[in-house]
């Protein structure tokens, strides 16, 4: 009778492995991957899903098995076996999880490096300064405060930098990102374009230099598996190279107020030709752009009503008029409190 039971165990083990391997690859839980980095992260996730599926089935299986096999039958008396432990077994179930988490750590470390997490140059000193430096642009807009001189090295923190192959090189496309309640503003300093949506050419390395005007926001592009907080007073960065043409959501992922949920725009990944066309069309309206840029820099949000402030972008971003109304309301408080703090 011993052989059949060990065969059952063996078969169960094989079955478990197969199911875990299959589910780890075919869970279909992630959205489209639009960059190589995203594919890397997915393979890490798949590996973790494989292990998790196995562990999940073992634990739930043991619980259900115990509930059926070791259930006290009506009228049954007596205790279970007086087993107080088993040192080799305990060592085993300490060592195996330890090995697994160590392996996941090393794997994550590698992927993180591949993504550009360790890029030493992304310390902020090299960033393109399309936007005024300083403790958040709310203050940048009122430079007469004077205690933060223009061009002084800003505090900077790393988000995700260049992948090892691209380290030390400047990104092909630089975009300055400003997060404010409840919108995103993208400025392309090299070509003098301001937009409410992020347009990037496929296959080119893009660097986002990000600042927040009021509170902490976070840029999240699920299809790139990238997220980075956008912090007032501290510049953060993201670098990535897309590999799939398409339109993807770009959402705020850090609670920033009542309309946090609607702080959503798009990232449009163009073919190189389309991208050039987009640039050309934007530059045609350069006049209008210059106007907006001037406003962005020269305006003190404490003096302007937020609705007025946002109006130029509202259209472009397809923000509903009711929302600007709400912004007006919310923003008045905001502007008011900034003003009071500045005083």
């Amino acid at each position, binding site marked *: 009778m011993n052989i059949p039971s060990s065969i059952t165990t063996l078969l169960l083990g094989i079955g478990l492995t197969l199911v875990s391997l299959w589910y780890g690859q075919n869970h279909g839980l992630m959205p489209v991957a639009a960059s190589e980095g995203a594919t890397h992260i997915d393979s890490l996730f798949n590996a973790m899903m494989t292990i998790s599926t196995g562990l999940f089935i073992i634990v739930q299986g043991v619980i259900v098995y*115990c509930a059926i096999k070791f259930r006290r039958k009506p009228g049954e008396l007596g205790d279970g076996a007086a087993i107080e432990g088993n040192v080799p077994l305990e060592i085993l179930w300490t060592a195996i999880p330890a090995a697994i988490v160590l392996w996941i750590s090393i794997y994550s470390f590698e992927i993180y490096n591949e993504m550009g997490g360790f890029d030493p140059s992304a310390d902020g000193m090299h960033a393109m300064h399309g936007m005024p430096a300083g403790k958040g642009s709310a203050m940048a807009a009122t430079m007469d405060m004077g205690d933060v001189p223009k061009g002084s090295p800003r505090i900077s923190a*790393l988000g995700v930098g260049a992948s090892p192959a691209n380290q030390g090189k400047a990104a092909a496309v630089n975009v300055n990102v400003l997060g404010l309640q409840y919108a995103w503003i993208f400025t392309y300093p090299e070509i003098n374009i301001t937009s409410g949506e992020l347009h990037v050419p496929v296959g080119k390395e893009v660097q986002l230099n990000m600042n927040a005007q009021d509170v902490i926001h976070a840029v999240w592009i699920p299809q790139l598996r990238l997220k980075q907080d956008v912090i007032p007073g501290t510049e953060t960065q993201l670098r990535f190279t897309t590999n799939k043409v398409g339109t993807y959501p770009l959402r705020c992922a850090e609670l920033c107020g*009542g309309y946090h949920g609607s702080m959503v725009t798009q990232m449009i990944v163009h073919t190189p030709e389309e991208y050039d066309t987009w640039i050309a069309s934007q530059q045609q309206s350069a006049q209008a752009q210059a106007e907006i840029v001037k406003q962005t820099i020269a305006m003190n949000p404490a003096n302007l009503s937020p609705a007025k402030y946002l109006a130029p972008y509202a259209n472009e971003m397809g923000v509903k008029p009711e929302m600007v109304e709400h912004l007006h309301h919310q923003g008045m408080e905001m502007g008011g409190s900034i003003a009071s703090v500045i005083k």
Partner: protein
Amino acid sequence: MTAELLIPNQTSEDDVVIHHRTWKDYFTFSTDHKVIGIQYFVTGFIFYIIGGLLAEGIRTELATPDADLVDPSTYNSMFTMHGTIMIFLWIVPAGTGAFANYLLPLMIGARDMAFPKLNAVAFWIIPPTGLLLILSFFLGPAQAGWTSYPPLSLLTGKVGEGIWIVTLLLLGTSSILGGINFFTTILKMRIPSMSMMQMPLFCWAMLATSMLMLIATPVLAGALILLSFDLIAGTAFFNPVGGGEPVVYQHMFWFYSHPAVYIMVLPFFGVISEVIPVHCRKPIFGYAAIAYSSMVISFLGLIVWAHHMFTSGTPPWLRMFFMITTMVIAVPTGIKIFGWLATMWGGKINLNTPMLFAMGFISTFVIGGITGVMLAAVPFDIHVHDTYFVVAHLHYVLFGGSVFGIYTGIYHWFPKVTGRHIDETWGKIHFVLTYVGFNVTFLPMHVLGLQGMPRRIAMYAPEFQGLNQVCTYGSYVLAISTVPFLVNAIYCAYKGKPAGSNPWNALTLDWQTTSPPEIENFEVLPVLKTGPYDYGDSEEEEKELTAV
């Protein structure tokens, strides 16, 4: 070997229920740890209902993509209040307040806690503070989430945020006072015959918990005091307008709040370690490993906090450090889970309600543990941080862990506290509704997060509506599931079948006195003759060994 326990002069009246207490005692500044334990539990449960109703409001809002039920900023205050109430006014008071207070002295053979007056003070801080927090609802409540990150928290209304800060400072004080009491009681009040290694595992769990309460809570107080200066006096510790560093607040906040998740779950690791051996009639598997793993978790729990900040501009090497420490916590946690499973294996399992909840605890907590390891992996966390994946994870540990742990303990010790049995059929109905409702509510949230739904949003993209509706229906089942529990518990506390003093034939000292225990717990101090988990038949053991 059958367990023996010598309690001199123990009268063995089995069916007599002695009512020492009248309901009025529960409204006094009583220093009896058992009264205080019940005060904590009932207070906590009332707040649980309030927090639960808020959760139902949140889920109802999320049944549709638009913000159509409440104003979006009201939505924000709803989840802020929900999170704050659930953590600080339900799980912490129920786990460390109710269970630890009621059980610790009984388990170690003491007549009361080390500092009974302090104990009463710690409790009486809670009801007025809770009321204050509820009151803020009518004065413009806090809206910045239970994490209250500046600068947002400095901009959403001074009154609500101010009350929120005061509330947390007071509840933190209560928690520190409790921690001092538990720590001292466990170390100093044991009967002389009980060595550390003979303590019930719940005591080990509480030792680990109380250390966290003492080390971590003061740092939260520091963060909150500085935050209140920024809020009220216009200083700039954290406010970037003026040169402050908002990220420093996050470090201080999580230095407390990560340990806080262990403050919320370690006591229930203890509860599960008590309940499983009794109802499986087997010794706990690997006593020393389970005891020490609590201490290891408590230590590691102090050095993982920045895993909540992988996208906060944290330097790369710090991210890697906190990734590895977080991963390592899976090892002692695994030791416990495997130990419990091995205890069940080969037992004579009595599948009653406490045992079902204990099995439910393992079943759901392990999912939270798995997603926890995933979240520790920095590249993956960068994708899912601040999404519904995290909401799913945190409820699998806080609900699937802590709340299931609370119910396990309530059903297990109900006969001890009331002297009566709680009805099994209704208990099982409660279990099934809770287990099903819980999984239907929270399992789909993993998918939502992976697919792109951030947390803390009142309006979401229409493509997420289907799964959100599933979650919402699940949450209604969950709400309904509390009704059979409440009715059953209240009815049986007065009308249930008398249970006698030790209906489970358990060996720990809490079961070796009358039910409910007399005012000073033991007539004569008990003397230990067996360990806490000396269940099991040696004959069975031999059978088992020859079979292998």
